[in-house]
């Protein structure tokens, strides 16, 4: 005891702990105030239509017409115009469906999961991401509806929705394909509702600005959709509760949708599909691809409309890091699939994976690995994350890679199933290629309409995260 000299040594326990104060990154830079945010976001809708918008809109319309033409040809002729043939009876239609549905997932992740996790940086990107979700679901829905050829059976009593057809035959509710109908239609509906609820206060702002500037027709149209919103706190109280509950239910929804999409494969017996890793692996992949698309869309938008104070470097960092995390999860899933194929000692399963990496579709497999596993690793480096052009290019690679992931999973497994006598090689027909290519036009067409007519950022939410919004007069929580 006497060895302890309390006179000179530092005390073992500090009387008071003073944690280091590290200031948080500002979510809206340059100390912009409420009015600046209103002017910036409303200005995009209120200003004249820029020339680049017309150019992009025309190109998107022309590209979208490929889908219209392809689908018209399909419906008038038959599904034989696509390249499907035994044994590959599911190909680009379901690849494209899963691809587009996956892209939608980032929007709901940003709007719901990050809302529950109180990630305030979500505010400036959530509106556009939710719009992206809705338009991606529209593009996805094209394929299951049209792959039946005679679409009137898909929509009317028939294949998809539970009405008995004329022979009183009902759907099989044991089938994941029927679960998928409910998952995707619920997802589309709830995404639209969530997006619309978020829009109401901003539509109110636009209504009043158009009224004040004397544009009464526009004021009436926006006012109709604003439902008479007046921003009263008694309304906000119910509104915020509703928004929180929607976020709370959209979170299990977004996780369930791609889980059920993965059941389309995992519940079957095909080697390479019949695995329990599919649900988490598909969800991680969906979020990965969705963030790829969010960056592909938001970075040009940020540059064109000079939104650097609202979508800051901090936002880009966060998105890059989520892409890195989910991309690494996807890479882990790829390696774990291989490991289980070997460890499970099922010769068909083992063959399916060797065939993926080294068979006839090896080119697709290595594109997938390159884009999905290698590309996101660049986001470890700050210099990469701060180079907006490079981030944008890498986000394109993510989109490409995730399309190839679905192609590899679906086509390689079917082309080489149990019986070598039925093996085949699938190539898409020109109709399929154009139909898929055209969906990018459909998506861009809708997204361009969105950025022209709808406030691209939730003004009320962005205003709520700046320091001046704090009623206790301090930004230091």
């Amino acid at each position, binding site marked *: 005891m006497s060895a302890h000299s309390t006179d000179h040594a530092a005390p073992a326990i500090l009387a008071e702990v003073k944690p280091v104060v590290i200031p948080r990154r500002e979510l809206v830079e340059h100390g912009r105030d409420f*009015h600046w945010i209103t002017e910036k976001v409303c200005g995009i809708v209120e200003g004249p239509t820029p020339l680049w918008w017309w150019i992009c809109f025309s190109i998107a319309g022309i590209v979208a017409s490929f889908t219209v033409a392809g689908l018209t040809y399909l419906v008038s002729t038959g599904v034989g115009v696509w390249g499907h043939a035994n044994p590959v009876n599911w190909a680009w239609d379901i690849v494209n469906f899963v691809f587009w549905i996956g892209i939608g997932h980032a929007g709901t992740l940003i709007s719901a999961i990050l809302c529950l996790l109180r990630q305030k940086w979500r505010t400036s990107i959530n509106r556009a991401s939710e719009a992206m979700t809705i338009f991606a679901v529209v593009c996805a829905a094209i394929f299951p509806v049209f792959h039946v050829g005679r679409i009137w059976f898909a929509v009317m009593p028939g294949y998809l929705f539970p009405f008995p057809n004329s022979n009183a035959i009902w759907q*099989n509710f044991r089938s994941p394909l029927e679960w998928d109908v409910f998952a995707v239609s619920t997802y589309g509906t709830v995404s639209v509702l969530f997006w619309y609820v978020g829009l109401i206060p901003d539509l109110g702002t636009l209504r009043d600005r158009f009224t004040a500037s004397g544009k009464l027709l526009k004021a009436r149209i926006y006012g109709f959709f604003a439902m008479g919103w007046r921003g009263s706190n008694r309304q*906000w109280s119910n509104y915020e509760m*509703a928004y929180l509950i929607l976020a709370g239910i959209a979170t*299990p929804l977004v996780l369930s949708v791609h889980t059920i999409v993965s059941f389309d494969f995992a519940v079957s017996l095909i080697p390479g599909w019949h695995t329990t890793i599919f649900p988490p692996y598909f969800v991680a992949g969906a979020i990965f691809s969705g963030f790829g698309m969010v960056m592909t869309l938001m970075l040009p938008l940020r540059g064109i409309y000079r939104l650097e104070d609202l979508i800051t470097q901090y936002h880009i960092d966060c998105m890059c890091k989520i892409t890195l995390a989910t991309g690494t999860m996807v890479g882990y899933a790829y390696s774990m699939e291989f490991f289980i194929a070997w460890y499970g000692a099922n010769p068909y399963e083992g063959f399916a994976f060797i065939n993926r990496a080294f068979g006839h579709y090896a080119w697709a497999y290595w594109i997938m690995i390159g884009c999905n596993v290698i590309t996101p690793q660049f986001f470890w480096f700050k210099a990469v994350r701060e180079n907006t052009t490079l981030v944008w290019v890498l986000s394109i690679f993510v989109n490409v890679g995730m399309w190839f992931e679905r192609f590899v999973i679906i086509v390689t497994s079917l082309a080489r199933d149990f019986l070598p006598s039925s093996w085949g090689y699938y190539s898409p027909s020109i109709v399929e290629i154009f139909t898929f290519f055209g969906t990018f036009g459909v998506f861009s067409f809708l997204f361009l309409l969105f950025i022209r007519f709808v406030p691209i950022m939730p003004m009320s939410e962005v205003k709520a995260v700046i320091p001046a919004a704090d009623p206790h007069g301090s930004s230091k929580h």
Partner: protein
Amino acid sequence: MNKTYGLIAAFDTTPDLYHACEKVRDAGYSQWDALTPFPVHGLDAAMGVRRSKVPRFSLAGGITGFCTGMGFIAWLGLVEYPLVVGGKPAFSPMFAFPVSYELTILFTAFATIGGMFFLNRLPMHYHPVLKAPQFVRAMDDRFYIVIEANDPKFNAAETRALLARAGGKDIAELEE
């Protein structure tokens, strides 16, 4: 001259509004509201607004959705169209779960939004405050308190004095 709907007072910052709301609450008014361009954190307590009743609608919607899914698939398998596939039971909550789960979420979403509209009395395209010329700023960057004339404690002179004491600016009458 139309009937008076109430008095409106403006505030420039959220702390001003917050403290003014506390004063109006403590003065015992009940028919009044704050207009803000975004939800102000903690203002419910400052105004004495009770917790929202929206979750009750959500719960009812969720239960309805789940029962609809389970009930429909049970009816289909057991009554309407018993189809044996792979020797599996005609109905089991296991395979009915994914669809019931999705319907739970779907019905909850509709009930939540419907409940929010119902509790907020929306759509209401006519409201006296929407007509006020200063209202455009309430959706932009300014904060307002409106005290209605039909509040039992409302008295044009006293209420105006209260709002002025609370720091309200540009106090004006709103017409019905």
